[in-house]
């Protein structure tokens, strides 16, 4: 017979460590397998470079890698910012007017069925090889997740709260700013987190098609020189940067929602 006892209260950091070690363990196993398989089959370094080689070469080539990473990071961030602007405008319009909702929302969903990767060459033809087409493509890739989150969030506003403010004589704008927008913030961040995970990938895809600098260019160059270790390195850097951006959004989310009841809080005074 087992008795389920409530876990003892833990401090914040020890709980974070407790949350961190399972994925860290899995990661260690994967890296170990990577190194082990490479050693076992005596893989050539241009097919499967070992983790140690990847880290070493990437570090040696950092003077080339950093500017590339910085270019792509800028494209990803500006793309996300553009996506936020587009998503906010669309979501508020969709939320405010039934006509807009009926005419725009289906098109917005349909826009996601476009093969956006296939659009990349077109965007380059229109906007050239600079950063603009990359930003446009990142925005195109990511606005949808943000917009859908916002539309749902705005619609999730509590009917009772809305009615209450109406009885106080609130205007539509006041209702939007004081009830609907605050209600939408949690789902906005959910959408934003999804968008962030797409952002680097879409910037890199745009760079594959044509660019002067960036991680996409770096990977193409490394591949053409059979420097598989550097391709791996660029992939790793992309993953780390995406995680970093994700972490920043998580922090912003916490700052934007100070009123949210912490999940660990129990009871009331």
């Amino acid at each position, binding site marked *: 017979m087992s008795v389920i006892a409530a876990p003892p209260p833990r401090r914040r950091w020890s709980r974070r460590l407790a949350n961190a070690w399972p994925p860290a363990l899995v990661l260690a196993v994967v890296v170990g397998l990577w190194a082990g398989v490479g050693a076992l089959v005596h893989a050539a370094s241009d097919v499967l470079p070992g983790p140690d080689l990847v880290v070493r070469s990437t570090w040696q080539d950092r003077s080339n890698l950093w500017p590339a990473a910085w270019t792509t990071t800028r494209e990803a961030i500006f793309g996300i910012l553009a996506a936020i602007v587009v998503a906010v405008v669309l979501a508020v319009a969709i939320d405010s007017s039934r006509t807009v909702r009926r005419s725009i929302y289906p098109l917005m969903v349909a826009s996601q069925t476009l093969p956006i990767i296939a659009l990349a060459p077109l965007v380059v033809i229109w906007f050239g090889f600079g950063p603009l087409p990359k930003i446009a493509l990142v925005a195109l890739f990511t606005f949808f997740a943000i917009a859908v989150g916002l539309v749902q969030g705005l619609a999730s506003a509590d009917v*009772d*709260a809305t*009615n*209450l*403010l*109406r*009885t*106080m*004589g*609130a205007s539509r704008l*006041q209702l939007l700013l*004081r*009830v609907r927008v*605050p209600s939408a*913030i949690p789902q906005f961040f959910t959408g934003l987190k999804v968008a962030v995970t797409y952002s680097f990938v879409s910037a890199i895809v745009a760079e594959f098609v044509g660019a002067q600098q960036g991680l996409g260019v770096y990977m193409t160059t490394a591949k053409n020189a059979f420097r598989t270790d550097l391709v791996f390195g660029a992939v790793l850097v992309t993953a780390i940067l995406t995680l970093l951006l994700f972490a920043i959004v998580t922090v912003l989310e916490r700052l934007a*929602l*100070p*009123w*949210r*009841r912490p999940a660990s*809080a129990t009871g*009331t*005074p």
Partner: protein
Amino acid sequence: MAPARERYGDAMSAGARLELRDLRKRFSQADGSALTVLDGVDLTAEPGEFVAVIGPSGCGKSTIFHILAGLEDASDGAVLIDGVQTPKRLGVCAFMPQRDGLLPWRRVIDNATIGLELAGVPRAQARERALPLLERFGLGEFARAWPWQLSGGMRQRAAFLRTVLMGKPAMLLDEPFGALDGITRGDLQQWLLDVWDEVGSTVVLITHDVPEAVFLADRVYVMSPRPGRIAAVVEIDLPRPRTLAIEESPQFAAYESRLRAALRGRTDPVDEPAAGTAGERP
């Protein structure tokens, strides 16, 4: 009343006279048929009076409030405020919904002042008005707390403070204590009476709790099950100020049994007055 006037400042106002005449409300349903929710409701609250509406769930009590507050229009009948037909009623009465309606992203003080804020009162001025009342409402230490940090009774007090602060001549309270335990409830009822005494506005209260209606109200309207009608009107002629001790009195018990009987639809209040009561309306 001088100290109360000082304390509540502009929040204090003379009560309004509310009158519903032959109010009817029909909703059209999905299958095209009409659902009659209110079928001729007459109700009057004199200036400064405390009126309770009691009835089984689904009898249209809340619909009466939605119409009074201006959220919905009546299908038929008239709504008179201070004797004048008032078709645009949003912003006229202070409405306290059944669930407290506190906005989770606003601190207690900002929830309390939202009515003033929407009315265009500058933030600093609204806070200045709210701060002494927070104390009076037992929320002094919780001005900066988030709503989730409050207990159920505190949430209701915060919601009621928000309602009082709007400074409207009439307050509509929709089952304000419905979700509270008995002890908290008794305390808050007592306290509500004290505040009402100081504020002086007209109060209409919806409840499904018979002792609550008797304890608080000058007059109780008993509603029939849907379609809602006024089945009985009972004047509660108990002396004021009232304290919870009054619940032990025989008159209190008589009023209670009379309301219970009316709720069951058995008694015609005009034909069968209960002991110790006076002044029914037909």
